[in-house]
């Protein structure tokens, strides 16, 4: 099901927010949503598409590192 929710269950350091894109157009515009699912990490980096578990985790961790190093 939702990998974001599952990694949040596994790690107390991860929080997951699912946003209904049509219901919050201002949030969608702020984070450049043009297609779904769009995954935004630390309100900065993002990727689009439903990825398999290994690729999803890699992408999230890479974007989290970018944020912390910025």
């Amino acid at each position: 099901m939702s990998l974001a929710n599952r990694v949040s269950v596994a790690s107390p350091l991860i929080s997951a927010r699912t946003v209904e894109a049509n219901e919050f157009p201002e949030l969608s515009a702020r984070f450049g949503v043009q297609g779904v699912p769009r995954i935004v990490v630390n309100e900065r980096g993002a990727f689009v598409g439903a990825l398999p578990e290994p690729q999803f985790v890699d992408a999230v961790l890479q974007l989290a590192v970018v944020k912390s190093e910025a």
Partner: protein
Amino acid sequence: MAILTDQVKRQVHARFAEQLSGPVQLTLYTRPGTGRLILPTGLGCRTCDDARQLVDDLQEAAPDLISLEVIDVSVQETDVREVPTLTLACPGESPRIRWLGFPAGYEFATVVDAVERVSSGDHGLSAATLEALGTLTEPVDVMVFATPT
């Protein structure tokens, strides 16, 4: 109009009876609804009534293990700005899983799944994923923009 059909309610009840093992806390942040009227941002809430009905149905599917708190943001001070917002956690813990907006369609399935996983603690992830997550040293916020279909 009912949000969940009687058949879906029975399915959720049966799943929860089999899958839930520990208590979970649902909190719904809401504002007095305005039916289907679309008002400027910050006024009313087009889907809060539907969200309330949905979480009531979820709670009634396993009343011994699911606690529900409903917070009217127009009355009670809170950091939550977007409504409806639904949060899920183990009782006494800060929620790390939330849905902004009415979780209909596919998103309803993610709510049911998350309730089961938080209750059981079974994330279902691989050992490699757990090892990778173990390298984290700082909080990570993951937002997933989705649509109901």
